[in-house]
């Protein structure tokens, strides 16, 4: 069992993501965010559970729905927010935006907007670990939709045959935009696809942060021992639309309600309170802390300058 401080840390991280996303939602509504946004609300247990099983020097790769991954791996809220606002102080100097958050200092190798494109890249980071002989692992996040891309097949197979230390973390939130998982694959559990590569495939409740953590820890241990990759399917749900413009009317109301009852944050909060690990005033204290750093992050981002236009011509070549 995890000790109290780690449990509180889990709670804090999930809350950071939740509040961060709600703030992004609000700022977008106020026309302060250019482009579009894909919120992680409801899926917090996946990023937090997986990243808790990782070491600081481990890597992750991320997706268009990536704010939560970055936060869970330890990236700073203020610089993520600044990036989302297109500011000079953002992680990518305003060149990447919401879909391309990266923080190489914390092993966050960046988010891609091309669905499924990170799988072979994660395998490559795994190969690099093997060749350099370190004990790192890579966690590669992707969606149910991504698992129908050719890169899923090619990327996982290559990691499998070379026993690379990669956790392929499929966040099955049952939809790719308006497309239901069940309409684009005949199998129920995406983890079954692991059979095709001769690697373990595990399906867990992606709204149970401890279940995710334990499965990820096992997979990471396996990976560090040189036994190769695991396909870890975390079944979860995005509580909002696909992007800011989507009201998600294609989802049955009962389905949405059923999943809202399984909210990962509330569940975990209830659990640690029930277990007597944390008291309500501590919950309140964490909440205040998170609200505070988030406020600071927003102020930092809002007050940061936009980049100089000519910045557009830099960073093309090393």
């Amino acid at each position, binding site marked *: 069992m995890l000790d109290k401080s780690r449990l509180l840390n889990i709670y804090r991280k999930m809350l950071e993501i939740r509040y961060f996303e709600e703030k992004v939602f609000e700022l977008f509504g106020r026309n302060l965010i250019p482009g579009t946004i894909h919120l992680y609300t409801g899926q917090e247990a996946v990023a937090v559970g997986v990243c808790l099983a990782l070491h600081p020097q481990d890597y992750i790769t991320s997706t268009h729905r990536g704010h939560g991954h970055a936060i869970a791996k330890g990236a700073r809220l203020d610089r993520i927010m600044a990036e989302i606002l297109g500011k000079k102080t953002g992680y990518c100097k305003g*060149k990447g935006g919401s879909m391309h958050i990266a923080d190489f200092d914390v092993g966050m190798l960046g988010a891609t907007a091309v669905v499924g494109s990170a799988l072979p890249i994660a395998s490559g980071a795994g190969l690099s670990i093997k060749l350099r002989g370190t004990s790192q692992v890579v966690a590669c996040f992707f969606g149910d939709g991504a698992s129908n891309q050719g890169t899923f097949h090619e990327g996982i197979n290559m990691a499998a045959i070379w026993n690379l230390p990669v956790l392929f973390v499929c966040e099955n939130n049952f939809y790719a*935009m308006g497309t239901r998982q069940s309409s*684009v694959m005949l199998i129920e559990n995406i983890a079954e696809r692991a059979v095709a590569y001769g690697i373990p495939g595990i399906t867990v409740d992606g709204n149970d942060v401890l279940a995710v953590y334990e499965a990820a820890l096992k997979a990471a241990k396996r990976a560090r021992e040189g036994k190769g990759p695991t396909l870890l399917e975390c079944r979860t749900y995005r509580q909002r639309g696909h992007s800011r413009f989507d009201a998600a009317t294609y989802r049955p109301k009962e389905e949405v309600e059923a999943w809202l009852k399984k909210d990962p944050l509330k569940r975990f909060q209830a659990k640690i309170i029930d277990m007597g690990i944390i008291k309500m005033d501590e919950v309140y204290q964490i909440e205040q802390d998170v609200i505070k750093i988030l406020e600071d992050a927003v102020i930092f981002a809002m007050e940061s300058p936009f980049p100089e236009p*000519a910045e*557009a011509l830099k960073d093309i070549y090393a």
Partner: protein
Amino acid sequence: MRQITYAEALNEALHEEMERDEKVFILGEDVGRFWQGAFKVTKGLAEVFGNERVRDTPISESAIIGVAIGAAITGMRPVAEIMFGDLTTLAMDQIVNQAAKLRYMFGGQTKVPMVVRTPFGAGVSIAAHLSQSFEAWFMHVPGLKVVVPSTPYEAKGLLKTAIRDDNPIMFLEHKLLYPIKKEVPKEEYLIPFGKADIKREGKDVTIISTLFMVHKALAASEILANDGIDVEVVDPRTLLPLDKNALINSVKKTGRVVIVSEDCKTAGVGAEIAALIAEEALDYLDAPIIRVSEPDTPIPFSPILEQFVIPDERRISNAVKKVVH
């Protein structure tokens, strides 16, 4: 005349052609009844023609094109949608090696009547992965035709022609054009491929431009008119086949040319058009050929950066002034 948007014009073309020919069907990610296309171009079609003829696909760009090819060579006329033009990179083998070459490789035994619709272009702050323009790549692929409609009128007339054409067509739209509302006749019409349209007549300088840049070129021309410069704006409407005569005739008339395209400058659309003129109309040129385009950078996210790289009226005007003086 009634006005409809570019997206609505495309939708009408799809609707009419599906009604006319039951071999026509649509496939792509989220084109069906739940989402109706990322830019709503397929709105209402699933309701009318059913899920069999308006097919939601998995996120599998390569298979979307491959499936369209297989259907096309066995008697159907698919219209495939790739949600963003940048994502055609995932299907290049199918587009370039298969769709474009099967007829040739098999000695004319088959034809590949299919349309790939996809939007290019920057301007909505969705960064480097979803904002590119690389029409020039497809111009470099014999076997394909490359269509670039700039207005609702062209969108409808060219899409109908594309669907009736027996070859693989890259039908390249532009994100910022979808909401543009303009006149479109209710009566059926087709626009032939390989026929440029003179969007504005003028005698001093020729601007050649396509897609969203046509509108910027026209706006720049109005400003330049105040300075006494009379600009002719020519829109090729299809890049392959390219209406060489229309371009060259305009250059012969004005003696000066600026090419405006939204892609990266090096080896872009402007390169081919400039080379064509340098090869076939050099003697008529009174000034160097200037290309106005994006600089050679990926598209950045932050609007201030993005607007810096997209060609605008000011850069177009400056280029025109440069070739005039």
